[in-house]
């Protein structure tokens, strides 16, 4: 059994490690530091943690101002508030001037669970992805979270890191390498390619095993870098397997599915199916039944894979 850890927990822990190496790193939160896990950092570095209160717009505006003074601010709250409520501040005060702010938002997707639809961001990838100058990353596990934070710091400009609330299996080992704009080929196959992101990478690997048992050879790609997206990897996969399934814990409109579809249409049109939230709001519930209810399990990916293979003929 793999170790289980949420990406938000990995984020909070790694901020402390980074603080030793990166002197100008500061962290901002909006009264959710216990949930976003920046409280771990606050405890170690109280002078570099700023809780701006329940004011997400000002969270982003102040982060922008701090960046102009040479700080590297990590701004954290829930994805619904950071990408939703504060959207235009992110666009105009952070992305337009290309300021060096890292926006690390937790509680993305329906795996928020019991809090329900008002707190489940299913549109954030779409919203962040369309803003010029923005980089959009979404880690599959705790290790990738750390690698993405390193990569975000290496970029002089805004980065959105999409984090989750629930525990997910640790898939990668310590020597895993992440590069912005590069997809990770996790498993090779011939008949179909599953392109997954975030906590759907685990179910995608599981789906590949289930398909194998039925004699279907599926390859699995982790698309942790949603923007910039790895066009070459998508093209190669399309040419090689002739069918694509995307899997994300996000609306099927404009997120990973949207991004992959844009590339496929232009470079290598092949049949594609999108596993994701089908343009409806979530609801309260435990995580596992929610994932089942909204079609976000390995079984759903298997079904989509079979359907898309059928469409090849």
């Amino acid at each position: 059994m793999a170790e289980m850890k949420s990406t938000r927990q990995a984020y909070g822990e790694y901020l402390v490690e980074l603080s030793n190496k990166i002197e100008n790193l500061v962290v901002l939160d909006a009264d959710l530091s216990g949930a976003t896990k920046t409280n771990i950092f606050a405890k170690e570095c109280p002078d570099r943690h700023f809780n701006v209160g329940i004011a997400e717009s000002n969270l982003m505006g102040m982060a922008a101002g701090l960046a102009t003074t040479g700080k590297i601010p990590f701004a954290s709250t829930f994805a619904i508030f950071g990408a939703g409520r504060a959207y235009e501040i992110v666009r105009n005060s952070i992305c337009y001037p290309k300021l060096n702010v890292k926006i690390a938002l937790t509680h993305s997707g329906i795996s928020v669970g019991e809090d329900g639809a008002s707190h489940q961001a299913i549109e954030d990838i779409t919203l962040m992805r369309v803003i010029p100058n923005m980089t959009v990353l979404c880690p599959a596990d705790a290790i990738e979270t750390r690698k993405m934070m390193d990569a975000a710091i290496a970029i002089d400009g805004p980065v959105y890191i999409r984090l989750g609330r629930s525990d997910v299996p640790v898939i990668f080992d310590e020597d895993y390498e992440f590069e912005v704009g590069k997809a990770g080929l996790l498993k090779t196959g011939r008949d179909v390619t599953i392109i997954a992101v975030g906590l759907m990478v685990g179910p995608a690997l599981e789906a590949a095993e289930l398909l194998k048992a039925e004699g279907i050879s599926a390859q699995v790609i982790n698309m942790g870098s949603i923007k910039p997206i790895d066009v070459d990897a998508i093209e190669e996969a399309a040419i090689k397997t002739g069918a694509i399934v995307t899997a994300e814990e996000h609306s099927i409109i404009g997120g990973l599915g949207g991004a992959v579809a844009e590339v496929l249409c232009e470079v290598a049109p092949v049949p594609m199916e999108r596993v994701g939230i089908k343009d409806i709001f979530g609801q309260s519930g435990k995580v596992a039944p929610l994932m089942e209810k909204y079609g976000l399990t390995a079984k759903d990916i298997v079904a989509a894979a079979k359907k898309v293979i059928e469409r090849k003929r």
Partner: protein
Amino acid sequence: MAFLEETAREIRKDIVKMIGKASSGHPGGSLSSVEILTLLYFEEMNVDEKNPRAEDRDRFVLSKGHAAPLLYATLAAKGFFPKEELQNLRQLGSILQGHPDMNKVPGVDMSTGSLGQGISAATGMALGGKIDKKDYKVYVLLGDGELEEGLVWEAAMAASHYRLNNLIAFVDNNNLQIDGAICDVMSPYPIDAKFEAFGWNVIMVENGHDFDQLRKAIEVAKKSEDKPTVIVCKTIKGKGVSFMENNAGWHGKGPNAEQVLQALAELEA
């Protein structure tokens, strides 16, 4: 003193000329804050036009970003970029965008234009100065209509919470916004009591076009020990051009050639 008045006059003429040439822009709210910016850039602020991003400089954020022509005319007068550039306001390829872009214009400390965001960024800048134990001040100019934006008050709360005495805000209280008088559209009054309640020092300036009054207010603001300061300045929208004064219709349109000539004649007189 005569120097400041002469500089303000030249800045006003440039504002009228550049908005006339562009046939678009915001003359009213640019003309109402001329003395505030003139005093800041030509007397008060520690800035170096040869080194616009100097680490220890004072900062200025134009939170009412639509007064960009005022900022551009002031920066050009100060020598941050050649004055000839002013005629390219709002033209394709120009550094002088409709609203200020910090990456295009030397001397612009923050990109603004969407109201309420400048004061929020200025609060972050002032906090950055505190973290680094720097002495610089962050000046920010707000419109009075802009005070209707909720973000202004989120920032105001944070600025007093973090005791940012290095943050000095001006409110250009010309009493007009696009759709009419601010008290008719959505009154932000009482402005002084609101800022006081948010933990700020409040200084009222009866005549925001009087350098002496503005200078005294800034002197008091700089002595604040643990609070941000707001200087609420009574001003006249469109100040200096008779047909623009106190007229909301001149919030956001360019004068025609004839109107430019009349305005320049009045400003020369």
